[in-house]
Every structure is written in C-alpha cells, then in structure tokens.
C-alpha cells in the first residue's frame, strides 16, 4: 500500500525496533518520589516532612481558596462558603466541579499537577497517599484536636506504615459523614401492612414478598452504574466475618474477598433477583433514574445513603422514611456502610493553613454544622460534645441522623466495598454484579473473580 519500497519498509522497521529497544533500556517512567520525601516502595507515607510551622490562625491577608468538588453536590458548598466568607471576609473561594465518575478518573491527575486545588473531593485516598500526592494531616490533627473526635469513620481515611487503611496518619476529612440504609415509601408500607422499622432480614424479605404480591416493585434501584454493590454489602455486613471484609477494604496484607460471607451475600442477592424483587431491566436503570422514580412514588424500598435525604425532604416532604438495614436477628448490632464524604488536601495545595482552618470550621462552627446537615442530610462529624444540628420536624433527615447515631453507638461503621481499590468497582465488582443478578455468574465465581481482580490491580 503505502510502503512503496520494501527497502523503506525494512529501514522503517529496523529504525522503530532500535528506538523501542533503546527506550526500553532507558530509565523507567515515573518518578520515585514526587514533591515530598516519601520513600517509594515500602509506601511509608509517614516519612513525609511536615510543613514548617503549621498554624491554626487564619491569616488576615486576602486569600482565594481553590476547591474541586463533585457536581450536583455544590449547593452545600455554596452555602458553607457564603457563611465562611461572611465570618471571614478576607477569604474568597473558587469552585471547579465535575461528575463523580470523571472525578474518580481525573482526581489524581488534577492533584499532582502544579495547578492542584486546595481541597479536592476524592473518595479513594489509599494509593494517592502512598504516592505522596495527599497532604498528611497529622500536624493539623494535633493542633486542632481532631484525634479526640469519634474515630469510627475517620479511621477509614487513616493510613499506617504498611500502607493499609484503618489506622495511622490522617489523610482526609469529611464534609458530612454518610450513613447508608433503607428508604421506604411510607404510604405503600402502610397499605401493605409492613412494620417499620424492619427488624430482621427475614422480615425484610417477607415485606418484599407482600409488596410483590400486591403488584408493587419491592426494590426501586438500578444497576447500570453498579449501585447493587449497596444491597450486596448491606447483606454481607450482617454476616459473620466482618473483620475480614474490613481488612480487604483496607488493603491489609493477605486480605481476601473470597470469603464465605461473600458467597452467601452474593447468593442471597441472586435469590432476590430470581424472586423478582428488582425492577425489570434492572441493569439498564441508572442511579439518577432510580432515585427519580422512587421519589415519584415507584417502588417500596430504596437502598441508598443519607445524601438523598435532603432531596427527598425537598421534593416529597413526609413521604419517605429511613431505617438502618436489618441484621439477622432483632438485637444484632447496626452495621452499615458509613463513610466520610471524603475531601483531601493535595500536597501541591497553595494555601494549606487556610484550608485546614476552613475544614476545622466546617466541623465545629454551629452554623456550618447546620448547613452541612440541611444540605447533605449527613452528620457533620466533629467533636462528640457539640450539640448535633436538628432537622425540621418530620423530615427524613431526622431518621438518617438517628440511624447514624445508632451505627456509631454500635461501632458498626464500615467503608464501601467499591472503595477497596481505585478501579475495583468499575472494572470488576460492578460488571460482575450485572452478571450475578441476571443469573450469569455463580456466587462462588463472583467472590473469586473479585479477589483475582483485586490482586491484579494491587500487583499482589
């Protein structure tokens, strides 16, 4: 075709091979350590040099803080930032935002660039912390007393010397701390005679059978963007071996997902699919469509988190309620996915002291805490001694708050399965769930395949 002379072709190939080999012999790509001094291989993030003189004072000089947020969740920040600027006029804010999916894909790139924001919405801190992109917040934690706050959810953003999560240095804070559970349509529950709160999994199944018999969709939830990881884990949370699941999520050495509880939970989810609890074409329904349908009155139950509570209160006040996912028995401790809506400070941030001050303010200032609750429906976290903010009477936010308190009391907070690694949800957990609930994958294969992907991604 285009290679009109064989000699040219041969020369070309020889040339390319030579270049390729030369480059292959060259130094490997990537730096061994970016801006900070963290050592590369053993992932000891604690080796980073602390910023000189961490200050808990807010400078009087005008400063513009750069925030990178998740689109669709910027309202709470608009209110927070307005309040902060009202209290501290020298501080202004610049906001950039993108969808959760794009954020998950791009956050690392954005933070390692010289243009890094001061604060970034970022759900999976582990790898980034290891690579030194995230600021170690220990000094600020010391200075502000963050280590004295309830640690149940904060532990999820701590990383120890082995690079595993669960304890160690603090790398993020939450603006709002989420809890997950079961939303229900009040009117339908009453019509069907379902007792709220549902106390056991068996009761929940009975309730769903009743709904099905009455022609209702028991569960209004879609799996196009892998939201069935929620009910999967909600079931698994109630089974034996929770600590092993936690170890797996935290990337502890030797952790595995190929557990009896994984197989059991997957089997139960598949069973629910077979019974018809899920909407038809469940894999075609995405998250936004599902919550939209639920809000307009379709379906009886919806598995999600307190971040929806604000919207539900606004769009359909008084129509929906919330309770934590039931255990095997009525007196089982309340275990639920409960995580900070994680925000990190990149190492390349330009205004570290100011942003730390802002973060502390979000957790401790009464007005800020109220805003966080009202807009996100989540607990604002912070010191246990502070009065919790209150939601308007009859709002479902009160129920999510109560559930969060229960989970905290029972020490039942666990991170999401999807947060185990940066890619596990989109690469394997999600697609395999789509196969599982349409009967195309056995629960055993499901658990094994996820573990395999986990090991490949972590290079184990």
């Amino acid at each position, binding site marked *: 075709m*285009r290679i*009109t*002379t064989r000699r*040219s072709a041969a020369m*070309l190939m020889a040339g390319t091979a030579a270049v390729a080999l030369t480059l292959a012999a060259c130094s490997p790509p990537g730096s061994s350590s970016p801006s900070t001094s963290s050592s590369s291989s053993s992932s000891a993030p604690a080796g980073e040099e602390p910023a000189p003189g961490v200050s808990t004072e807010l400078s009087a000089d005008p400063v513009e803080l750069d925030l990178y947020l998740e689109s669709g969740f910027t309202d709470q920040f608009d209110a927070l930032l307005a309040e902060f600027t009202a209290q501290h006029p020298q501080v202004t804010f610049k906001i950039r935002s*993108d969808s959760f999916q794009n954020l998950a894909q791009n956050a690392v790139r954005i933070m390692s*660039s010289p*243009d890094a924001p001061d604060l970034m919405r970022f759900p999976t801190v582990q790898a980034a912390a290891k690579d030194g992109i995230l600021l170690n917040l220990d000094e600020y934690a010391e200075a502000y007393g963050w280590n004295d706050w309830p640690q149940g959810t904060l532990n999820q953003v701590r990383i120890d010397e082995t690079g595993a999560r669960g304890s160690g240095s603090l790398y993020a804070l939450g603006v709002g701390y989420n809890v997950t559970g079961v939303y229900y349509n009040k009117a339908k529950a009453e019509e069907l005679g379902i007792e709220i709160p549902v106390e056991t999994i068996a009761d929940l199944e009975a309730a769903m059978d009743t709904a099905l018999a009455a022609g209702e969709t028991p569960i209004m939830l879609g799996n196009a963007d892998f939201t069935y990881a929620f009910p999967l884990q909600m079931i698994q949370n109630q089974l034996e071996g929770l600590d092993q699941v936690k170890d797996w999520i935290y990337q502890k050495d030797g952790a595995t997902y190929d557990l009896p509880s994984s197989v059991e939970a997957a089997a139960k989810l598949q069973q629910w699919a077979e019974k018809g609890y899920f909407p038809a074409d469940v894999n075609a329904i*995405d998250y*936004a469509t599902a919550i939209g349908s639920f809000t307009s009155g379709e379906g009886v139950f919806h598995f999600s988190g307190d971040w929806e509570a604000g919207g539900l209160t606004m769009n359909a006040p008084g129509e929906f309620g919330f309770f934590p996912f039931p255990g095997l028995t009525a007196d089982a401790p309340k275990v639920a996915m409960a995580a900070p809506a994680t925000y990190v400070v990149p190492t390349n941030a330009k205004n570290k002291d100011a942003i730390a001050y802002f973060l502390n303010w979000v957790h401790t200032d009464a007005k800020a805490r109220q805003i966080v609750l009202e807009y996100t429906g989540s607990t604002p976290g912070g010191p246990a001694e502070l009065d919790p903010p209150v939601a308007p009477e009859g709002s479902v936010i009160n129920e999510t708050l109560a559930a969060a308190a229960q989970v905290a009391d029972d020490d039942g907070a666990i991170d999401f399965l999807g947060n185990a690694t940066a890619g596990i949800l989109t690469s394997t957990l999600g697609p395999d769930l789509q196969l599982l609930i349409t009967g195309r994958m056995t629960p055993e294969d499901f658990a094994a395949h996820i573990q395999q992907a986990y090991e490949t991604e972590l290079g184990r």
Partner: protein
Amino acid sequence: MNTARSSRSELWLGRIVLLMLVLFTLLPFVGMLSAALQPAGSNPTGIQVPTNPAWGNFITAFEMSKLPTLMTSSLILVLMVVPAGLVLATAAAYGIVVLRVPFGGVAFVVLLLGLTIPFESLIVPLYHLMKDAGLLNTRLAIAMPLVALYLPFGVFWMRAHFQGVPKEITEAAEMDGAGWWRGLWHVHIPLARPALTTLIVLYSLWTWNQFIIALVMMDEPLMRTVAGALGAFQGQYGTDIVLLSAGALLIMLPTITVFAVFQKQFVVALLQGSVKG
C-alpha cells in the same frame, strides 16, 4: 444498472430500498428533534409528534450548555490546529514532491504509517508527555498532539496534489528565476487552493469533533472541543432526555450547517483522490 432496461417495479423497489436507507440515516436526528420539543422535564416515550412544540427547550439548552463558550473554545482550537497543520503539511509535501529532497520517499513512508495508528494507542504516552511538560489543562495540550496526528494525512493529501501539477509549471518558475520560496508562494499555492480548502475543511471538522484527546488533556469541559464537552453535558443532564436532546442538537448544528454549505467540497475532496487514479 441500466435504467432503460429495468422494469418499473424494479425501479420502485430500488426507490423504496433507498428510501429506507435514508430514513434509517435520519432516524436518530428525528428522534432527538422529537424529544427536544416535548414539554420540559417530561419523559418522552419514543418518537412523538409534539402537540405543543416546546421550542423554548432550545433556549434553555443553549444557556445551560454554555454553547457560546463551547463554540469559542472549539474555534480557538481550530485556529490553533489548522493553520499550523496546513503549513507543515504543505511545506513537507512541497519538499518531497516538487523539490524532490533526497530520501523524501523514506520520510513519506514514515509519515504514512501514522495513518493507521489508532489515537487510543498513543493517548497514554501523549498524556504523560504533556504532563511532564506542565502543559496539561492548557489548550496547547490538545492542539499540539492534534497537529502531529493530522500530519500524515495532510502530507499525503498535499503530496497527491503536487503530484498532479505538471512538471512544466515548476520548470517554468525555475527558469523565471524563482527560488523555492517564491515558487511555493507565488506559483504553487494559488494552484493548490482547492486542495488546501479541502484540507482546511477536513482539519476543522476533525478538530471540532475530536473527543478522546480533549477528554484526556483537559479537565475543564468548557475548554475542550464541542464534542468533548458534549460528553460532560451528557453526564450532567443524562436523565433529562428533553434537555439533553435539545442540547445535543444545538451542539451538532454547526457541523451540520458547515456540511450543508460545503457539501460540494466534501464530495469533491473525496472523489478527487479516486479520480486521480
């Protein structure tokens, strides 16, 4: 197929088949138009003739999609890519064909191979190249790789043109004492106008519709190409079919308009190559 011989029923069969193909082609556009004209926020089922066409949706979509910003951004990128690409490609083809540089054939073959390299195969190293140069999230990071990636075709195209120019013209220019530059500028470029115009149109179209490079190099959707921003638009308004359709149609309108205006150019462009053979 000889129409004189075909029976009337064969003719009609032919017309029907062609009609079906055309309808198939137009189906998505009709679908989007129908959805865009439904009442705002509704959930249209299939293609419906709107009883009360909600033309206002286009205005909403225009505002929400920030179309003027998007189009400006795309235009800036086109201005960054097209002139540079044109100059480089024309100069190279001129050197190879008209001036007959030694080993020009080799250079040409090297460039040609680039025609078959999928962009996705290069996107990762290109990304890191831009990152190390500190150019990520600037338009340069989108424009420069595009210039390079479009070169193979550009050189190819201009080479084909120059090959079609009779040697006598070049020789005449030489005899008149024109150096290389004058020869190019005063003699060849005017002759190359049709080929250059086609190249401009094609380069512009490709840049406008470029997706993956814009997606990877630029985080801010408003500074990408129109196609790149369309992806973000879908992410944000995915569940609002009405708004999404209106926005998508608006975003596609410029390219469709250009095509309608330049269709002769497009057709001639593609046909030129085969006629030359």
